[in-house]
């Protein structure tokens, strides 16, 4: 039993790996994840607007992209992009594996984000864009200023789930081989595990991942609750008048 415990929670082993996890692994993981989220969100938004096009020949390309990249194992996509592109002579990031990892994880994330954002945009009542258009705003201005901001708010929890997936998938960069300085959490921990035949480094890396993902979830949930309080929608339900300000927050909370 003691041996089993030490196989996962060997304190000296953890302390030995901790400095490189914190100074090298964590920053690299955060960098890959943050850039992949940025790529995924922006490409996802473009794909979502294509998915919502009224022209079928526009929709069909976005649909193919989403179906393909949601349907492939992430490890295969990362290999195709990170190993396949350089091997084929396409080297936009030179020999830097982090660049290819960002691209690959971002491309996968874009497919999921596209579906999430499409659903969010479609959840905005059509009256919102009708009102915007009737004020003279163009289609794109109405989308940008009225529909998309509300659509994103409606799917914040789902988007957070996707960001968490991006953080975790950043570990797949290990497939591409990393030099010292480029290593992220999982790579460092797995090197240590291979050297010591003890899994404590992996547990330490796991804790680092949780330190990123768990607060992220709670942060977004809090933001979500705050935004919802401001935009609680109800039509004919009588609203508390401003004089009853003390009771307002509770009343809105219940309706949400």
């Amino acid at each position, binding site marked *: 039993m003691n041996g089993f415990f030490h196989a996962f929670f060997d304190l000296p082993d953890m302390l030995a790996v901790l400095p490189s996890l914190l100074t090298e692994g964590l920053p690299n993981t955060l960098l890959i994840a943050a850039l992949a989220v940025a790529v995924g969100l922006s490409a996802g938004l473009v794909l979502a607007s294509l998915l919502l096009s009224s022209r079928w020949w526009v929709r069909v390309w976005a649909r193919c992209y989403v179906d393909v990249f949601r349907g492939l194992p992430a490890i295969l996509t990362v290999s195709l992009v990170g190993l396949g592109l350089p091997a084929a002579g396409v080297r936009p990031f030179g020999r830097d594996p982090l660049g290819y990892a960002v691209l690959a994880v971002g491309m996968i994330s874009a497919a999921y984000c596209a579906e999430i954002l499409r659903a969010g945009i479609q959840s905005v*009542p059509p*009256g*919102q864009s*009708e*009102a*915007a*258009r*009737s*004020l*003279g*705003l*163009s289609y794109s*201005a109405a989308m940008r*200023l*009225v529909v998309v*901001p*509300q659509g994103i*708010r409606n799917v914040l929890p789902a988007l957070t789930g996707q960001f968490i997936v991006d953080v975790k998938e950043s570990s797949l960069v290990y497939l591409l081989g990393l030099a010292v300085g480029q290593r992220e959490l999982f790579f460092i921990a797995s090197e240590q595990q291979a050297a010591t035949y003890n899994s404590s480094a992996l547990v330490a890396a796991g804790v680092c991942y949780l330190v990123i993902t768990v607060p992220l979830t709670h942060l977004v949930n809090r933001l979500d609750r705050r*935004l919802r309080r*401001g*935009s*609680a*929608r*109800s*039509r*004919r339900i*009588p*609203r508390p*008048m*401003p004089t009853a300000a003390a009771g*307002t927050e509770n009343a*809105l909370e219940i309706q949400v």
Partner: protein
Amino acid sequence: MNTQSAIEVRGLRKSYGGTEVLRGVDFDVAPGEVVCVIGPSGSGKSTLLRCLNLVERPDSGTVTVAGACLTAPSVDVDEARARIGMVFQHFHLFAHLSVLQNVTLAPRHVRRLGKDEAARRGRAHLARLGLDHLADRRPAELSGGQQQRVAIARALAMEPEVMLFDEATSALDPELVKGVLAVMRDLADDGMTMVVVTHEIGFAREAADRVLFMDGGVIAAQGPARDVLDRPDGPRLREFLAQVL
């Protein structure tokens, strides 16, 4: 062609699926005139109003508002819509923006007003409707009556030449109807050109220069409010008025 009309509608037709909702509607609205459109539900009155700023696209016929023929293929519909204010039954305030931001959004992004100038004018419009103390609230924090008055302020902030009201008080609790009707009444007194689809026969009697009675997708009767409402002509109009009065 009568160039003096604020609104000119000719031969308007609109179908959904196999049902023809508008079956050839013609009418004019003079500048400063207040026209109330009444009729049973399903008579096409909301569809008619929604065709006036092309929220719905008519199948055929022409709509000319403030000199611009909206149904011409070359017209800039956005530019035309900016000059037509529309107030909806369910307000449709932008839920993610404050009251003031609701009112300044279109002036800033359509009229290209600076932020401060738009806010200054926006506050003036809110003050005129007695809403300035709500400028920083979210729509969801307001009563229905307040929301609808904000929606009116939002439309007025574009300084439209024509205002369209689509059952603006139908979704309100009875005690909130009065305040919204009072605002509409003030607008009418100020000389705004208005087309008002309403079930409020009392408002039509007091504020309308002319009443249109829609039935089965056509204008079945029209004339000065007193004639149409107090000396109704035809069994359908009499039957309708007996039900709503």
